[in-house]
C-alpha cells in the first residue's frame, strides 16, 4: 500500500517501466524534462495513456488537421465528444463513430457491446438523446477458423447493448477479408438529436466548483485499454488476456436518462464521459480545455474492489461512468435525480486555478503534474511515408469471361461481399423508438424527427480494396458512396464522421495509406460540402506484422425536409421506367479493375480502382434529390459493389415487382453490367420523357435501361429470365450457411 501513499516520486519509475506502458525513449525523456523529476507509477500511467496513439493521435494529427471541418451547418467540429450539426428548426444532430477493434477480438461480445455503450455516452454527454446506431464491421475470411465465433459474438454484443438500452441499430456494413483474420474491425456510430442552443461541453468552468463522479463503480476492468489499442497484436497479447470491460446496458440506460434529466434541469456546467483511459482522460481533458486545474481525492471514487491503487483507479476503463462539474447551488437537485435512477453520485474533487492535476490518496499526494504537457505537448509525429507501387489499370477485355450476365449475377449476389445482411440486422432492434422510417436493407437509414416533418438520413461506408489499391481514390470513394447512399433516399448530406482503421504507421507504406486516404477524404468532403465534425483513429491493426486492408470508414448524416417523400430501393410500380443516372448510353465500357467481378468471377485481385469525380458526384446527387423532392422518382439505388446489374437485382429483391433491362450489343458487356464506375444511380420514374428533359436541363447524363414489370422475374436482354424468388434465395444464403 505504501507505494502510492507518500510522495509522488516513490517508487521511482525507469525507462523500462515507460517502455512497458508503450512509451518511446524520446517520450520518456520528454516526461523527465517537463516534470523536472521522475514520475511515479500513477503519473507515468497518466502520461502513457494521454500520449497513446488512441488519445493523442500523434501519428495522424498532422494529417487530420488538413480535413475540412467548417461550414455554416457546423455547430461543433472535431475536438469535443461528438460533432454537432444544425438541422434547422432549432435542432441539431450530434454524432460520432468509434472503434473497439482490439477488445472485440479478445472478447467479441463484450468488446462490441462496450463499443456501442462508449459511443452512446459520447453522444448523450453533449446533451443529445441518441436516436440511432450504426456500425462498420470487418471480419476475416469466411473459412477462417475464428470468423464464425467472432461474427456471432460481435453481432450479439452490438445487439445486446443497443437493443437493451433501446436505441435502434439502423444500418452498417459487414465485409470479410483474410487480412482481418487476426484483427477484426468493430466500429460503432451513434447519432443523436439535441436543441441547438442546449449543447453541453467538456471544458471545466469556475475554480472551486465541485467535480462529481456519477454512474457505475470503478473496478479493475480494461486497465490500459487505450495503450492496448495502440500497439500491434501478437499471439502473446492474445494469451495475456487483459481484464476485459464488461458492458452493462441497463446501467447505461439509467445513466443516459439521469444525465439527460440533469441537463434539462440546468444543473450541469461541464460534462465528460469516461471512455478510453477512464478517469485520466476525462479529468485531464475537462481541466485543460477549461484552462484550469483539478484536484481529486481518489479515496472518494466509488470502487467495486478493495485495495485499488491510484494507478488502477486512474486507468480503469470500467463502463457507464461520467465526470461532471456542476453548479454548486444545484447540487441537491442533481443528487435527487441520480438517487431516483439508483446511480452513484459522488463529489470527488474540485476545479482549481492551478493548471495542475492533483490526486490525493490515503492522506498523501498520489500525483501532482502540470496539465499542459499532457495535452499541448503531446508528441506529434510527421512519420515518413512511401506509397506502394501504383496498381495497373486493367482493361475490360482482359477481365472478360464467357458466362452469361444472368449467371454472373447469380454468382455475385451470393458472394460474401454482396449477400444479404439480414442474418446480421435482424438481431438488432431496428425500430425501437418507433421513429425508423427506413431501417437496414436499403441505402441510407431514415429516422423521423419528432415535432417536424424532417428525417435524419445516415450511412456508413468504405471499400477497403479500393483504398488498398489507391488510398487517395479510395478515401474519396468512401465519402462519395456515403453521399450517394443519402442522396438516393432524397436526403441532403450535411457532414461526416470518420474512423481511420489502418496498420502500423511506423511502416512507410501504411503511413502512405493514411496520408493518401485522408487527402482523398478531404478533397471529397470539401467538394461535397460535408465537413468532418468528429472521428476516431485506430492504428496498429496488425497481427504478427501483417496489416489489415486499410479501412477509413465514413459515417455520414444528412436531412430530408419531408420524410414522407423519401424513396426506397425496392421497385413497387409496374410500368415505371428504369434509368441509369450518371452515365451516357454510349459509355458501355465499364470499369472492371478492382471490382468484385474481377475478384470473384475473373479471379483477379487488384488493379486501379474506379476514379471518383467529385464535381460529377455533387451534380448527380443534387439532381437525384431534386427529382425525389418533386416526386418524380419512385425508387432509387446507387450503383456500388457489383455494378449496374447487381444494383437492379437488389431493387427487384427489395421490391414487389420484376424488371426487364435492355443490354447493349457490345464486346465488353461484362464491363457494362458489372463495372463499378462511380457517381451513378438507378431510378424508377413514372414519366420518362419528363425525366430525360430534366436531366438534360441539369446537364446530368442519363440512359434508359428498362422497365419495371408486373412479373416476378428479372430479365436481362435476351437471356432467360431469373425468378425474383431464386435471386432472393441465392442472395439470402451466405450468412445463414456460414453461421449454421
Amino acid at each position: 500500500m505504501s507505494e502510492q501513499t507518500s510522495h509522488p516520486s516513490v517508487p521511482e519509475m525507469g525507462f523500462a517501466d515507460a517502455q512497458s506502458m508503450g512509451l518511446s525513449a524520446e517520450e520518456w525523456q520528454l516526461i523527465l524534462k517537463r516534470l523536472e523529476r521522475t514520475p511515479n507509477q500513477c503519473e507515468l500511467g497518466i502520461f502513457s495513456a494521454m500520449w497513446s496513439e488512441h488519445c493523442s493521435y500523434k501519428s495522424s494529427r498532422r494529417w487530420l488537421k488538413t480535413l475540412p471541418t467548417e461550414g455554416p451547418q457546423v455547430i461543433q467540429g472535431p475536438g469535443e465528444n461528438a460533432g454537432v450539426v444544425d438541422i434547422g428548426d432549432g435542432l441539431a444532430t450530434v454524432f460520432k463513430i468509434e472503434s473497439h477493434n482490439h477488445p472485440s477480438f479478445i472478447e467479441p461480445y463484450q468488446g462490441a457491446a462496450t463499443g456501442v455503450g462508449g459511443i452512446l455516452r459520447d453522444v448523450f454527454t453533449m446533451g443529445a438523446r441518441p436516436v440511432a446506431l450504426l456500425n462498420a464491421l470487418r471480419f476475416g475470411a469466411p473459412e477462417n477458423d475464428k470468423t464464425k465465433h467472432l461474427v456471432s459474438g460481435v453481432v450479439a454484443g452490438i445487439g445486446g447493448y443497443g437493443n437493451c438500452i433501446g436505441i435502434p441499430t439502423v444500418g452498417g456494413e459487414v465485409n470479410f477479408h483474410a487480412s482481418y483474420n487476426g484483427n477484426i474491425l468493430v466500429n460503432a456510430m451513434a447519432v443523436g438529436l439535441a436543441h441547438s442552443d442546449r449543447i453541453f461541453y467538456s471544458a471545466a468552468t469556475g475554480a472551486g466548483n465541485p467535480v462529481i463522479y456519477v454512474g457505475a463503480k470503478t473496478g479493475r476492468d480494461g486497465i490500459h485499454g487505450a495503450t492496448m489499442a495502440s500497439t500491434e497484436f501478437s499471439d502473446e497479447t492474445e494469451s495475456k488476456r487483459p481484464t476485459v470491460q464488461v458492458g452493462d446496458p441497463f446501467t447505461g440506460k439509467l445513466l443516459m436518462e439521469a444525465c439527460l434529466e440533469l441537463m434539462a434541469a440546468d444543473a450541469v456546467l461541464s460534462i465528460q464521459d469516461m471512455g478510453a483511459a477512464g478517469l485520466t482522460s476525462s479529468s485531464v481533458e475537462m481541466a485543460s480545455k477549461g484552462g484550469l486545474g483539478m484536484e481529486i481525492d481518489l479515496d472518494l471514487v466509488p470502487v467495486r474492489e478493495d485495495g485499488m491503487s491510484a494507478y488502477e483507479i486512474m486507468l480503469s476503463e470500467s463502463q457507464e461512468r461520467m465526470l461532471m462539474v456542476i453548479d454548486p447551488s444545484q447540487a441537491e437537485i442533481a443528487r435527487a435525480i441520480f438517487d431516483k435512477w439508483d446511480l452513484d453520485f459522488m463529489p470527488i474533487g474540485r476545479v482549481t486555478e492551478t493548471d495542475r492535476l492533483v490526486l490525493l490518496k490515503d492522506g498523501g499526494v498520489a500525483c501532482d503534474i502540470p496539465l499542459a504537457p499532457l495535452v499541448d505537448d503531446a508528441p506529434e509525429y510527421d512519420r515518413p511515408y512511401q506509397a506502394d507501387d501504383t496498381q495497373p489499370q486493367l482493361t475490360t477485355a482482359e477481365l472478360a469471361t464467357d458466362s452469361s450476365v444472368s449467371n454472373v449475377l447469380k454468382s455475385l449476389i451470393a458472394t460474401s461481399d454482396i449477400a444479404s445482411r439480414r442474418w446480421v440486422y435482424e438481431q438488432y432492434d431496428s425500430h425501437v423508438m418507433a421513429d425508423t422510417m427506413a431501417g437496414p436493407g436499403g441505402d441510407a437509414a431514415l429516422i423521423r424527427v419528432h415535432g417536424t416533418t424532417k428525417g435524419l438520413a445516415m450511412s456508413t461506408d468504405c471499400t477497403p480494396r479500393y483504398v488498398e489499391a489507391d488510398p487517395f481514390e479510395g478515401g474519396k470513394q468512401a465519402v462519395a458512396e456515403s453521399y450517394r447512399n443519402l442522396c438516393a433516399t432524397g436526403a441532403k448530406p450535411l457532414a461526416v464522421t470518420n474512423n481511420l482503421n489502418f496498420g502500423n504507421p511506423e511502416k512507410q507504406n501504411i503511413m502512405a495509406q493514411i496520408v493518401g486516404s485522408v487527402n482523398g477524404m478531404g478533397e471529397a468532403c470539401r467538394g461535397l460540402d460535408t465537413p468532418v465534425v468528429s472521428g476516431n483513429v485506430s492504428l496498429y491493426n496488425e497481427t504478427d506484422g501483417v496489416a489489415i486492408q486499410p479501412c477509413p470508414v465514413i459515417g455520414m448524416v444528412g436531412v430530408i425536409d419531408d420524410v414522407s417523400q423519401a424513396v426506397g430501393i425496392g421497385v413497387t410500380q409496374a410500368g415505371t421506367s428504369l434509368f441509369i443516372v450518371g452515365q451516357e448510353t454510349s459509355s458501355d465500357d465499364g470499369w472492371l479493375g478492382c471490382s468484385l467481378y474481377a475478384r470473384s468471377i475473373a479471379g483477379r485481385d487488384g488493379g486501379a480502382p474506379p476514379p471518383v469525380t467529385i464535381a460529377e458526384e455533387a451534380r448527380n446527387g443534387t439532381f437525384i434529390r431534386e427529382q425525389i423532392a418533386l416526386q418524380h422518382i419512385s425508387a432509387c439505388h446507387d450503383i456500388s459493389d457489383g455494378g449496374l446489374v447487381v444494383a437492379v437485382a437488389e431493387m427487384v429483391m427489395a421490391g414487389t415487382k420484376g424488371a426487364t433491362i435492355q443490354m447493349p450489343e457490345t464486346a465488353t458487356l461484362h464491363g457494362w453490367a458489372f463495372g463499378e464506375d462511380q457517381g451513378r444511380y438507378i431510378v424508377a420514374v413514372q414519366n420518362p420523357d419528363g425525366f430525360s428533359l430534366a436531366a438534360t436541363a441539369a446537364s446530368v447524363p442519363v440512359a434508359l435501361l428498362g422497365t419495371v414489370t408486373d412479373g416476378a422475374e428479372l430479365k436481362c436482354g435476351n437471356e432467360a429470365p431469373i425468378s425474383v424468388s431464386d435471386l432472393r434465395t441465392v442472395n439470402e444464403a451466405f450468412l445463414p450457411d456460414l453461421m449454421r
Partner: protein
Amino acid sequence: MRAAIIIFPGSNCDRDMMVALERITGRRPALIWHKETSIDPVDMMILPGGFSFGDYLRCGALAARSPAIEAVIDHASRGGAVLGVCNGFQILLETGLLPGTLVRNADLKFVCRETSLAVQKTTASLFTDGLQDGQVLTIPVAHNEGNYFAPEDQLAMLEDNGQIALRYTEGSHPGPANPNGAAHDIAGIISENGRVMGMMPHPERAIGDGHHSADGRIFLQAALEGVAQ
C-alpha cells in the same frame, strides 16, 4: 378512455406506446413510475416493452416485484383491462396474471422483424371483439425471449378456453412464420375473463405514418374501443 403506462427502469418502449396512443386517441396516457404504490383509476393499464431491470435474472422477474405491480394486480382483480407488450408480456407472466412462461428464442438469437399474426376469436375479449376471426395483422417483433412455453396440460387448457388470441401465421417475411419457436405458434394470450392480454409483437411500432404497417393501429384501436364499451 384513460390509459396509464407503467415505466420500469430499463423500459424502452414506454414513449413509443405513449406516442401511439396519443396519435390514436388524441389523449396522452398517464406515465407511472414503478415506485408508485397507488395509481389513479384508469380504464387500461399498459406494461410496455423494453428491458426492465436489464432482463436480469429472468425477463420481467424484477419488474414483477415492483411496488406499482400491486396496483396493476389490484386493477386486474377488479376486472380492469391490462395489456402487456413484449417485456410487458413477460412481466405479466411473472406476476401470475397470465399463465406460462417465455423462454429464449429457439435459435438463441434476438429477432427483430415483421410477423404475420392471425387473430383468434374463440372467446369474448375486449381485445379481439372489434377484430375478425382469422384476420391477419402484420406487426413487428423484437425480442430475445419470446418463445412461449407452458406444460402440455396448460397449453391444452389455453386452447380449450380460447385464451390464445394471436398466433404467428404465414406472411411475406422470408423466414419461418413462427420467429421464436413458441408453442402452438402463440404470439399473444388473454386471461380467462378476456381482460388481461400479453403479446410479443409491438403494435405501437405499426401505426402507419411512415411505419411499414398500420395494423398495430387497428389492433390498439379495437382494444381501446373494447375497453370503452
